[in-house]
């Protein structure tokens, strides 16, 4: 089995994976009754009429979480190949990995110290 065939499998999987769950939804569309009316389709807010716009402005906190997640994501991505080759590597590799992680942990503690990751 060559490598490209593996990816062909993944490719077909990606095409098929959303279609399988879509099937019952389409079936439901066939069997389900369809009697729309304005009140039924109104936005559900526990029976109270909606006030104002849905798409409100969010606080900057979410963006900070997003950014920190992005940074750790990149870190993880770079650590995976390191971990994969790790058992063939020497102490120098441990040192390099340690320094890499240490610098980022620094940033994490800075964020914690500034209460940037606190939800309020």
């Amino acid at each position, binding site marked *: 089995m*060559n*490598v*490209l065939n593996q*990816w*062909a499998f993944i*490719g077909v999987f990606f095409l098929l994976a959303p279609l399988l769950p879509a099937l019952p939804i389409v079936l439901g569309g066939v069997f389900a009754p369809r009697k729309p009316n304005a009140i039924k389709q109104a936005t559900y807010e526990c029976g109270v009429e909606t006030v104002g*716009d849905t*798409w*409100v*402005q*969010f*606080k*900057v*906190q*979410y*963006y*900070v*979480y*997003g*950014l*920190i*997640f*992005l*940074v750790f*994501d*990149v*870190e993880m*991505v*770079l650590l*995976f*190949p*390191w*971990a*994969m*080759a*790790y058992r*063939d*590597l020497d102490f*120098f*590799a441990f040192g*390099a*990995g340690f*320094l*890499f*992680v240490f*610098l*980022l942990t*620094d*940033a*994490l503690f*800075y*964020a914690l110290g*500034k209460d*940037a990751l606190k939800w309020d």
Partner: protein
Amino acid sequence: MVIGGITPEAFAFGLFTILTLGGALGVALNRNLVRGAVWLIVSLFGMAGLFVLLSAPFLAAVQVLVYIGAIGILITFAVMLTRSMTNLRERFTNQWWMSAIVAGLFFLFLLLGVVAPVWGSLSPDQAPAIVGTTEQLGVSFVDGNQFVLPFEVVSLLLTAAIIGAIVIARHQEEEE
């Protein structure tokens, strides 16, 4: 393995190119920012497919993980921070002729700078087979003679990014 005269690779390449370019067009032409973000994700996904075809499965996974999983979400968060841009009914005016000219110029520079020097010197036969290279990548990250310095510098850069983000966010909160 050939179906109807088109190799699966060629078919996949066509599909991913359409996804990439179509997604990019969607971003450029859509007047709603969140829908634009969704189109951007489509485009980035096409890029991930192209990485697989270029025998870089690791980069493809990184593309999905970092660009689709993290940056896609980050962009949506950023959009939600800007009031009224997310509203489905509201449209933002985009001076797209200006952007088109600037983007076109950039593309031209890219063609001249990156593609022109190697144009014609590569033939399809030279394309390397798709092989596993991730372990070599890991070794080269921590090899003193290869990329250990860039590896650590990346870490420093990421640290700077976190600190910068926090400083800016706190500054904004104080202004409110």
